[in-house]
């Protein structure tokens, strides 16, 4: 397969392929973090995760329209405003959903599955009725689109670099929030032993609400960032949900580090195989590997040890 290429061509292709794997890694982490927080810390499987992402994408769309018509001079920077707004909106919707629905279902995990799935259908139809059934095209500022040429033959997509940096920032921020802040300590206390945490004066209801909101908020930011690489329509959230669950379950519930490790493994396996095999075959082999590993380690790669 490679005999007809020169050495330097191969080097640059492999360099670009390496970056493709890293970009996929960043995308998967960004997709999965919000779900991992909610699933890991609260045991709630949020089937509407994709729809929260798409809310973020729609917010980005409307922000871009607003900037294009009101502040065309600032258009190059609208994306940062859009991500902030996406976080605020999805965080707000997340806390609302927790308050109105999820909090009644904590003792019935299967029902939360059904309820959030219902929520995802409701949100999809809501988007369709309000924003229209057709996909919308989000205009990305020109500087974020092209590619950055490292050498003559190695070109790296700028939006990929952007997603990588964004993922790094959010993951670092989350680390400090969960493991270095007072609030994070409360969250972890609630996960480990809810009655005891309540007994020492932690407002567990508030912790739950904010955790759910935070997970949704991060989903919103991810959705906003993905307008650069994917589509924005009422059902686009469904495109991400399978990969997201795959990453979280494979990584082990309750472990943010596990999510990151699993995203790394899946992305590298997938992008390497995509290069040597066909796209569909790569997906099949990736899924088979995940199934195989989960049969041997049902708790996922890195599971949190807690007393049941």
């Amino acid at each position, binding site marked *: 397969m490679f005999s007809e*290429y020169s050495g330097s*061509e191969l080097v640059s*292709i492999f360099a*670009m*392929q390496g*970056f*493709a794997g890293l*970009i*996929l890694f960043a*995308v998967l982490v960004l997709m999965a973090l919000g779900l991992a927080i909610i699933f890991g810390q609260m045991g709630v499987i949020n089937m509407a995760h994709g729809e929260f992402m798409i809310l973020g994408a729609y917010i980005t769309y409307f922000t871009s329209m607003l900037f294009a018509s009101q502040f065309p001079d600032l258009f190059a920077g609208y994306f940062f405003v859009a991500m902030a707004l996406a976080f605020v909106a999805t965080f707000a919707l997340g806390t609302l959903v927790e308050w109105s629905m999820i909090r009644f279902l904590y003792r019935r995990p299967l029902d939360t599955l059904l309820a959030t799935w219902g929520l995802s259908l409701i949100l999809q*139809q809501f988007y*369709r009725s309000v924003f*229209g*059934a*057709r*996909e*919308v*095209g*989000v*205009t*990305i500022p020109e500087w974020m*689109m*092209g*590619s950055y*040429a490292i050498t003559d033959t190695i*070109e790296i*997509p*700028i*939006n*990929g670099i952007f997603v990588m940096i964004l993922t790094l920032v959010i993951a670092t921020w989350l680390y400090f929030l969960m493991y270095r802040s007072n609030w994070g300590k409360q969250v972890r206390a609630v996960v480990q032993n809810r009655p005891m945490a309540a007994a020492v004066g932690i407002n567990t209801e508030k912790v739950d609400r904010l955790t759910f909101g935070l997970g949704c908020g991060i989903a919103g930011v991810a959705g906003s960032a*993905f307008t*650069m*690489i*994917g*589509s*924005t*329509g*009422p*059902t*686009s959230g*469904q*495109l*991400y949900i399978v990969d997201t669950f795959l990453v979280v379950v494979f990584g082990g519930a309750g472990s943010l580090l596990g999510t990151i490790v699993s995203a790394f493994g899946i992305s590298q396996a*997938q*992008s390497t195989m*995509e*290069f040597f095999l*066909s*796209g*569909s075959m790569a*997906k099949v082999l990736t899924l088979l590997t995940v199934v195989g590993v989960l049969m041997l380690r049902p708790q996922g790669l890195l599971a949190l040890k807690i007393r049941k």
Partner: protein
Amino acid sequence: MKHPPPPLDRRRRRLTGWLAALPLSLALGQGVVAAPPPTAEVNSTGLAVTDDSVTVGILHSVTGTMAISETGSVQAEKLAIDQINAMGGVLGRKIDYIQEDGASDWPTFAEKAKKLLVNDKVAAVFGCWTSASRKAVLPVFEQYNGMLYYPTFYEGLEQSPNVIYTGQEATQQIIAGIDWVVREKGAKTFYLLGSDYIWPRTSNKIARKHIEKLGLKVVGEEYYPLGHTQFNSVINKIKLRKPDVIYAIVVGGSNVAFYKQLKAAGIDMTKENPLVLTISVTEDEILGIGGENIVGAYAAMKYFQSLDNANNAAFVKAFKAKWGDDIVIGDVTQAAYLGPWLWKAAVEKAGSFDVDKVREASPGIELTTAPEGYVRVHENHHLWSKTRIGRAKRDGQYELVFETEELMEPDPFPEGYQ
């Protein structure tokens, strides 16, 4: 703003209005007496036809993932029905429609088709979009002898007595496109890419056979699962193989991801190195992709909104007047618009709403008013139509760069291509 006329003036105008209407109503009165044939004569199989109306069905997804694509078809069919009614209907009968939602779910399509045929006894159904939904309703239409007008370009390999295919089948779209790119652009190597289901796979098979017949080379062929959103690896592979043409049949949400990532990877389609030729991106899809992300790509299909002819100008104007100025019209939307008109012509030729008579009358039906230009129904229930190449512009429209001189003959079972 106009001021209302003074009362005297208004009264006079009303009087003259009545006077003017007098001969008209006389003429209409005669027309009504003379034109519509008795119901028993035009409907011998118990369809939903009365003395002044006929009921048809519209069966598309308005919810679920396919709603994105099927919305345009519903709008086109309703527009055609409105226009036919404004002209006096079919055999003097006004068309009423019953709309059912297939909900992007194939068993639901079959169930709703049965409801339309068995309970509502509709005279014809305009509907379906994906091949999967058509395959699901096919046994229903054949069992209860209904008539389906199917608008989407599709893979061929089908010919049912109960379906009229108003979109192009694969060879019409593919062969002219590849011939053009070889002749005009000197293409020698091709990279075939598609979403992983029957239409892209069958189409690429035809494309590959044709490319190899011309003595040229396919340097890669790849399929990605529906909904796949990461194309960086395949783009690297394409860069490695350096084809002259990327032949892309990616659909749905994947489409948006593919073109955005192609652009981000530094492939400028306006430079045509490689050139991108697609058969799956209409103006509808460009809405989601964004014109700036696909500018320079070529598409091979039979209709573009920008076609410059009087039929199309009137169609686009009427469509926008009914559904809003921002709307775009893609290939399938236009094909869906043909459905009610072809049915009307067949009914009038047959002098009957009976499905068997309409079927018999259908081959040879011509439409000179089609927005795409002249079309004719073939013996095999597909349409003779021209194939056109358009180049995507930044504003989301295609610019026509080529059209075949002759109508392309539909060939759903192409010999030597299977």
